[in-house]
């Protein structure tokens, strides 16, 4: 990107204005400016989300789908309006294809427990990749232990790219589900999910995409992708914790049994028999986290008001700058060099343990993730136990990168690198 383009880009997204939308960014940590570079773990919240939640509790709160009174109807409308916002975000065909869950982890477990237990049997295969978050590994292992299914893992190369040929070769007559991440949380690799779904469709295999690290950074269109399930967590998209989304094609969701039983997911109950509610409520047993859903709706509106084009331009420019500056540091090794990268950069610095680096950076008010990022198989693939990961969001700027680089020189000083 040329200097002139960079200027235009930063003009289309006014970082200073955006930073002002996030109250936490003005607080100081250990007397220093807060440099928050851990948004891939969870993003900070804009005032609009905080205000919406607060207003909901102060003025519109009552249980949903229950009361005949005005206030309950009001809360129900707000909840269902949030579902419509999610539908719009993902460009799903229908709102009933949007199931609210606790987060991506619960969404994947729901698919494994409902779809997997019903439609997969011993010897059937689930195909994942070597760069999944534990949330897209463990639910399938549990299904393996229960049903005797087989978990196949597509390899990645030294750059941290999915080996698409090997992936294609692993698809066989027993492959019954493909579950891949859209963006790898430990490496930042953007996976070729379009190619994955295209391949899968040739064999009629359903595809689940873990969109946790994608939705904060890029527009997602589940119809264009033609995926069968798409999951994400609200808290990584500037929304509240405890709320997330399972998108599923209506025909698939309709064929799946509920995975939890209770109130809200039923139409009629006698002791002999229960008639289940229709989609999506069939999968939302009990009082849902509707206040969280309303907050997520506000987060989506906030992101859309900025626009994914502006977000992508700003973030890719910043990521390129970060990689350029980090690469100048002696003995710093970036883990993974994917052609398409989004949001995160993972690295090793002279073999210093990431926890020591994390402590030293924290001392300067810099928050990074130090550890295995819930992706131990990815770490093993690169022969490291842990890495330092800096991740970027709409509110980060070059000052944050500069602070990180300065902090790393303190690490080098302390450890005499």
């Amino acid at each position, binding site marked *: 990107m040329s200097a002139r383009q960079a200027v235009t880009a930063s003009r289309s997204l006014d970082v200073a204005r955006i930073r002002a939308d996030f109250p936490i960014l003005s607080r100081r940590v250990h007397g220093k400016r807060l440099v928050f570079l851990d948004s891939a773990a969870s993003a900070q919240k804009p005032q609009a989300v905080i205000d919406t939640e607060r207003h909901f509790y102060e003025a519109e709160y009552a249980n949903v789908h229950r009361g005949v009174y005005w206030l309950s109807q009001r809360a129900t409308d707000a909840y269902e309006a949030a579902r419509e916002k999610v539908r719009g975000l993902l460009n799903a065909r229908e709102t009933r294809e949007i199931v609210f869950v606790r987060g991506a982890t619960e969404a994947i477990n729901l698919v494994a427990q409902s779809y997997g237990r019903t439609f997969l049997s011993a010897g059937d295969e689930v195909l994942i990749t070597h760069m999944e978050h534990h949330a897209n590994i463990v639910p399938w292992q549990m299904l393996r232990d229960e049903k005797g299914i087989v978990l196949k893992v597509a390899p990645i190369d030294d750059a941290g790219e999915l080996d698409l040929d090997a992936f294609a070769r692993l698809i066989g007559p027993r492959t019954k589900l493909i579950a891949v991440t859209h963006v790898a949380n430990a490496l930042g690799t953007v996976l070729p999910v379009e190619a994955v779904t295209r391949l899968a469709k040739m064999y009629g295999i359903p595809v689940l995409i873990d969109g946790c690290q994608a939705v904060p950074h890029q527009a997602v269109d589940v119809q264009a992708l033609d995926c069968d399930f798409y999951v994400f967590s609200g808290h990584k998209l500037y929304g509240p914790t405890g709320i997330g989304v399972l998108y599923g094609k209506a025909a698939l969701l309709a064929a799946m049994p509920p995975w939890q039983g209770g109130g809200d997911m039923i139409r009629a109950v006698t002791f002999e028999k229960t008639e289940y509610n229709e989609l999506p409520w069939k999968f939302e047993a009990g009082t849902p986290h509707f206040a969280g859903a309303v907050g997520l709706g506000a987060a989506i509106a906030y992101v859309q008001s900025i626009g994914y084009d502006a977000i992508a331009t700003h973030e890719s420019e910043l990521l390129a700058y970060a990689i350029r500056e980090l690469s100048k540091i002696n003995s710093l090794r970036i883990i993974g060099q994917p052609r398409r990268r989004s949001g995160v950069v993972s690295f090793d610095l002279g073999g*210093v*343990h*990431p*926890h*020591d680096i994390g*402590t*030293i950076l924290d*001392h300067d008010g810099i928050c990074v993730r*130090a*550890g*295995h990022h819930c992706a131990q198989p990815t770490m093993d693939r690169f022969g490291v*136990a*842990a890495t330092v990961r800096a991740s970027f969001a709409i509110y980060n700027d070059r000052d944050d990168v500069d602070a990180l680089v300065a902090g790393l020189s*303190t690490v080098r*000083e*302390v*450890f*005499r690198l």
Partner: protein
Amino acid sequence: MSELRDLYQEVILDHVKRPRNSGALAGASHRADGDNPLCGDKVTIFLSIEDGRIADVRFQGRGCAISLASASLMTEAIKDKTEAEVRAMFERFHTGLTARDEEDAANALADLDKLAVFGGVREFPVRVKCATLPWHTLVAALDRATQPVKTE
């Protein structure tokens, strides 16, 4: 920077570079594995106990500077000590790293010679587990624990 220097003292960096008593101990009478799942630190402590005293000790592991240096310095500190003495040392070490009162902490560490270099850890509460992992594992070895020790 000075607080960081208090944490990463010369002695600590030296033990990270040149860990003492590292490696497996053939014919160990006691052994235990410990890990901290949060950061992936792992340590194995081997003991050879004769007549109630630590005749020999070795450790194997991977981890951050604080946990490695703690393991290395611990092996030096406990050699030739009785089991009861070692347990009392851990008690003092723990107090030295966690006591609310600064003076209590300083007093506890004062008796521990070289181990006093870990005094700076008190200012970094999330790192206390790193420094105590080898000690917890040591106690497990003394108790002949068969379960891996976890600090989480």
